[in-house]
């Protein structure tokens, strides 16, 4: 079953080293990359460095990452977004940073892709529903962006919002129909969570720009929290002095907390969170505290009762 679970690492590494050569030459599109590799994953190639601290996990294969998605703006099913997300237009795209910051900003995606220090980090991703995957994200630390806007003493929480445009995201028009969630989707973090070096804004995966169904052109990745916190297709970031709204918490506060840290000792009301189903695998594996990032983030929650603040 190995072949189903992971992409052959040697192929992936070969492709990555080719990418690096392309980056050195400085004209990625003109370098005769192997046809296999160029064909393998759609999207535009990105220039990035691999972060050695987060390169040890073997990634779930590309097909699984891109055909098993929760993206309710397109469909309630897992395979729906891959088929329906073609209406999303990731270009042009801007991100607006407002609220309790020194200088509010509007940043063009094109600038992020060319000027920001992009790196690759392979993170675990654990869905609250009990499945998990490992994704080689490309992106940069959220703190990099927040520092550009400048924090103040009133910067306590950060709220993120998915773009609201029913032409691009058809389900946003059908709010309340057969129980879809309210739109636009919003998520939030405490400022120290947002500034933690693990917290990542992703613009790509497997070396290419983000596939639409994975939240193109830019999404949050908070690897120690359940997947729904990692909001997709972000267009607004609002810094505030009080706790922010978050969609699933509003839909069902008993089942989805604001923090939603991965925690095998706190059950979801309808299922245990002690184990998880890695995509493509037939056997469950144990879920780790903070999804395996306890060392990096446990200090954020010192003295908090995680059963109450779930």
């Amino acid at each position, binding site marked *: 079953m190995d072949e189903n679970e992971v992409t052959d690492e040697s192929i992936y590494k070969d492709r990555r080293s080719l990418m690096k050569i392309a980056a050195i030459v400085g004209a990625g599109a003109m370098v005769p990359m192997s046809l296999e590799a160029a064909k393998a994953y759609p999207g535009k190639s990105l220039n990035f460095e691999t972060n050695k601290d987060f390169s040890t996990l073997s990634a779930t294969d590309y097909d699984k990452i891109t055909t098993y998605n929760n993206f309710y703006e397109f469909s309630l099913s897992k395979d729906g977004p891959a088929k329906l997300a073609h209406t999303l237009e990731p270009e042009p795209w801007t991100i607006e940073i407002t609220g309790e910051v020194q200088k509010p900003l509007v940043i063009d995606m094109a600038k992020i892709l060319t000027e920001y220090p992009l790196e690759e980090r392979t993170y675990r991703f654990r869905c609250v529903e009990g499945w998990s995957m490992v994704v080689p994200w490309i992106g940069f630390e959220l703190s990099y962006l927040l520092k550009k806007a400048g924090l103040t003493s009133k910067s306590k929480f950060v709220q993120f919002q998915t773009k609201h445009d029913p032409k691009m995201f058809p389900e946003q028009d059908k709010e309340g129909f*057969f129980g879809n969630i309210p739109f636009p989707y919003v998520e939030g973090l405490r400022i120290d969570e947002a500034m933690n070096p693990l917290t990542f804004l992703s613009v790509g995966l497997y070396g290419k720009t983000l596939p639409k169904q994975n939240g193109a052109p830019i999404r949050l990745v908070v690897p120690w929290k359940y997947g729904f916190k990692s909001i997709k297709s972000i267009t607004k970031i609002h810094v505030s002095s009080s706790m922010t709204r978050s969609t699933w918490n509003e839909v069902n506060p008993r089942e989805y907390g604001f923090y939603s840290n991965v925690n095998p000792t706190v059950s979801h009301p*309808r299922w245990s969170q002690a184990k998880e*189903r890695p995509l493509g695998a037939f056997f*469950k594996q144990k879920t780790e505290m903070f999804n395996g990032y306890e060392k990096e983030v446990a200090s954020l929650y010192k003295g908090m009762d995680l059963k109450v603040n779930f």
Partner: protein
Amino acid sequence: MKKIIWFIAFLPLIYILYKLSWGFEYPRYIASFIYEHGGSFLGKFPNDPLKFIADLLGITAIQFLIASLSVTPLKSYLKINLIKYRRLLGLWSFAYAFMHSLFFFIADNEGNISMMIEDAYKRPFVFFGLSAFLILFMMAITSHKKLFSKFVKWHKLVYLAAVFISLHFIMSQKVIGLNVSVYVGILVSLLVLRLLKR
């Protein structure tokens, strides 16, 4: 007709076998032959195999339950008499409910009975699913001709099972999608038809 029912009843199991074949060295050749000769709509190895199997077994149990509950209204409203197939349809519903429950018991409760009881106690949707299964189990073992006449009034509990299954299905979802709405809508309609007839 019976042969057709048996054939349809085996399709979900064959589909599961096909999907899992992708995960094994030699069966994969058969699966890919089917895939390349018009079977591409069947897909390859499931992304989330445990959930795929549990869901398919559960949905099939509901489909056969709907079929068996439709027999009486079909006769009284449309004069279509399928009464001699009702038992077979009901038994297949039980068979799939059994496989669904067994699969859950092994995959989720690790084959541990006390874990299953605790699960049913703590989680209402498991409680409703298990209760519905016990009703179907009772019906299956008393469905033989000799016992059926004695237990026929107990078989009315199937409508309670239908209510439990609807709750089980709804409560297992994050949000109520079209799929669930349709199945639950049909089950409720059958229940209403039954109550009107009294």
